[in-house]
């Protein structure tokens, strides 16, 4: 019988340890026990194993930071939205739960309002009293109807002194959209806020009016002036300022009470800007993990500074993802009058209708009358329902984002291809002779038949029929310039070809003679050049569609 206490071949006490861990079966355990009973050295050794293991209890057992759960949940949001920023970025500014969740405009409004009112109570004496020019008991008369519209935007103005302050805030880039997007050219175009806030309920409007009236007259005048100056500002400037205004007030809204107080109670606008900067910085630092904060303290070593830069970038990525969420929420809650791109642009909106018709075969009039059938367009009946309901939700309830997302979804699922100048092949009678042998027997004809009448689906389906590509077969669609319909020829000549580099032109030339390869290459190049192809792809720059309606496209 093997001596169980003898070490294994390479000198280890597997059985003894397993015995101590209670992992041996009865027989093996009995053998170890017998040996322990017989041999005092074995007992000593067992004791040493046990004791040394016990020593591990001296190791400090770290407890997570009390904020651990909160921090983890904050980092969860980008995960939920499938964004890229999840892996490592910490969150500089946590969006409040109501901004992140399935918030409707009905819920956000009272929240914004709550602190606006609360702040004024809390800061009744401190905030902006330096502006008081006469005793607060002397009230201005009731605001005129024309002023109501301005008062409805009050939540945006609460933390702002005047236009000069707002411009400085805008210059500070603390709330600059450009940090959140890849393309500085378009960063600030995201927010179009002629009418930034949703209509409040009557009760809330009343509260806002009361609030406004409670301001010292000088402050009232200041807000009026700011509102009017913004209204007449140059569009580009207004765009930038209102964007900053919105982001700043949302940020302010999410701050803890004490921080908000620090900002709002600053005695001059200059001090307020300082306070904003400090709170901003503080929140960024606090949002870093303890490890990151530690690194930040010792930035003298180059490597660590690089680490820091890396963290900074991650922070910005996280911030970018957050803003997208915030803005989507915002745009969902701002009602019918405010439409997101491209619906904010009447010309583009009309082109969308044209696109639906030519690329997807969808007649909007028929769609809305519930007369559209899968047989007469490229959509399934489910997709038809989807399109109709999201169009209705957009036009009737302001859910433009879901409509936009629906359009992008359909465009992705049913890419169109440019038509030939001659007749497009869409039914059996048009199939070229050399392809006839690939028409499946009756029983398997279903898919092809189902696509009968549809371009390019019918031809694509037929193209798939041969087991392997055969270059001797005649192409089923246009394969070089001169063979496309007028619209696409014009697009190629005027837009696409001039934009291409020599390499890109070469790519295109190499695909000549092949269908659908040539068309697909042309469309891929158009996409690379951020060009919309009339009647083939969604109207408006492809990158804009991605930016607004496809979260993944934001990640790098």
């Amino acid at each position, binding site marked *: 019988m093997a001596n169980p*206490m*003898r*070490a*294994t071949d390479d*000198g*280890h*006490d*597997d059985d003894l*340890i*397993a015995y101590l*861990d209670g*992992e041996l079966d009865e027989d093996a355990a009995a053998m170890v026990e017998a040996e322990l009973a017989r041999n*005092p*050295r074995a007992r*000593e*050794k067992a*004791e*040493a*194993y046990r*004791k*040394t*293991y*016990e*020593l*591990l209890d*001296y*190791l*400090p*057992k*770290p*407890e*997570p*930071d009390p904020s*651990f*759960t909160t*921090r*983890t*949940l904050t*980092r*969860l949001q980008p*995960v*939920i939205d499938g964004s890229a920023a*999840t*892996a490592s970025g910490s969150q500089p500014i946590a969006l409040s739960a109501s901004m992140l969740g399935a918030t409707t405009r009905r819920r956000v409004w009272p929240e914004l309002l709550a602190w606006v009112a609360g702040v004024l109570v809390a800061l009744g004496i401190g905030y902006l009293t330096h502006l008081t020019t006469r005793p607060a008991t002397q009230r201005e008369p009731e605001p005129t109807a024309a002023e109501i519209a301005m008062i409805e935007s009050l939540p945006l103005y609460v933390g702002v002194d005047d236009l000069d302050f707002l411009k400085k805030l805008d210059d500070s880039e603390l709330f600059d959209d450009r940090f959140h997007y890849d393309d500085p050219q378009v960063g600030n175009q995201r927010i179009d806020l002629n009418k930034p806030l949703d209509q409040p309920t009557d009760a809330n409007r009343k509260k806002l009016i009361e609030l406004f009236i409670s301001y010292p007259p000088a402050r009232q005048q200041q807000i009026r002036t700011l509102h009017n100056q913004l209204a007449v500002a140059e569009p580009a400037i207004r765009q930038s300022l209102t964007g900053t205004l919105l982001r700043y007030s949302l940020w302010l809204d999410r701050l803890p009470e004490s921080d908000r107080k620090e900002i709002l109670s600053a005695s001059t606008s200059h001090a307020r800007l300082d306070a904003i900067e400090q709170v901003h910085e503080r929140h960024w630092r606090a949002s870093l*993990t*303890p*490890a990151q904060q*530690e690194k930040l303290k010792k930035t003298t070593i180059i*490597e*660590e500074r690089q*680490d820091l830069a890396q963290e900074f970038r991650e922070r910005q990525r996280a911030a970018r993802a957050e803003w997208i969420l915030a803005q989507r929420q915002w745009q969902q809650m701002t009602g019918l009058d405010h439409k997101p791109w491209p619906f904010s642009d009447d010309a583009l909106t009309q082109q969308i209708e044209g696109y639906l018709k030519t690329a997807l075969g969808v007649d909007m009039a028929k769609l809305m009358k519930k007369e559209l059938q899968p047989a007469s367009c490229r959509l399934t009946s489910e997709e038809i329902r989807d399109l109709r309901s999201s169009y209705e939700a957009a036009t009737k309830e302001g859910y433009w984002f879901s409509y936009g997302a629906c359009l992008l979804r359909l465009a992705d699922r049913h890419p169109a291809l440019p038509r030939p100048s001659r007749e497009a092949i869409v039914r059996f009678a048009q199939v070229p002779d050399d392809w006839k042998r690939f028409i499946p027997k009756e029983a398997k004809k279903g898919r092809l038949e189902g696509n009968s009448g549809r371009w390019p689906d019918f031809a694509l389906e037929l193209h798939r029929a041969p087991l392997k590509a055969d270059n001797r077969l005649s192409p089923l669609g246009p394969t070089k310039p001169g063979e496309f319909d007028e619209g696409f020829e014009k697009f190629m000549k005027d837009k696409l070809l001039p934009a291409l580099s020599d390499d890109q032109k070469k790519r295109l030339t190499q695909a000549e003679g092949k269908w659908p390869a040539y068309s697909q290459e042309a469309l891929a190049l158009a996409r690379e050049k951020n060009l919309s192809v009339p009647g083939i792809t969604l109207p408006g720059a492809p990158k804009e569609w991605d930016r607004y309606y496809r979260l993944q496209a934001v990640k790098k």
Partner: protein
Amino acid sequence: MMALRDPDIRLMLRVRADDRAAFAELVERYQHRLVAVLAHLIGHKDEAEDLAQEVFLRVYRTRLKYTPKAKFSTWLFTIANNLALNAIRDRHRRKTIPLEVRESGPQGPRTADAFTADRTAPPAHQLQQQELADVIKRAMADLNERQRVAVVLNKFEDMNYADIADVMGLSTKAVKSLLSRARGKLREALQPYIYMDTEPPPHTADEDDGDE
């Protein structure tokens, strides 16, 4: 069904169904164990916290892959193990943060050679608890990664060999041998310290018999 008995599995099934409150509860419930285990594995508390967050996020991201076949904790620690090993490897590559050992200084974990000096000089009885903790940390740091994982799960999570095997993707037999080696090493490193607080037994000086 295991799922009916184990509240964590029920919780995880709710997480799988996108219940965020359940996820918060899960984080609340497991953070202490997870941070402790990761801190033991990578030797640095703050890094352990960061990593623990990653683990929870990974849990959320892969929630749909969870099936209530295994204990939830086994699944959790499987993820933790993978991420911890990756982190350790990354660290080796970047050579940035050493295991936090007080005397080690900026050069990183002290070498086994340096340790020999300590061992040959019998530890004084008045060795402070902090110093003892450092000695133990060092002994742990000197284990290889897999040995350390096995020890930490066995010792601090009280996991049996089969569960450790699941977490580490090994056979039970391999775990047995891994733990045996690890504990052999630990005994070698820590033996001089085990009788610090009590009278040493008579044979201490010549404890190692001819078996090794």
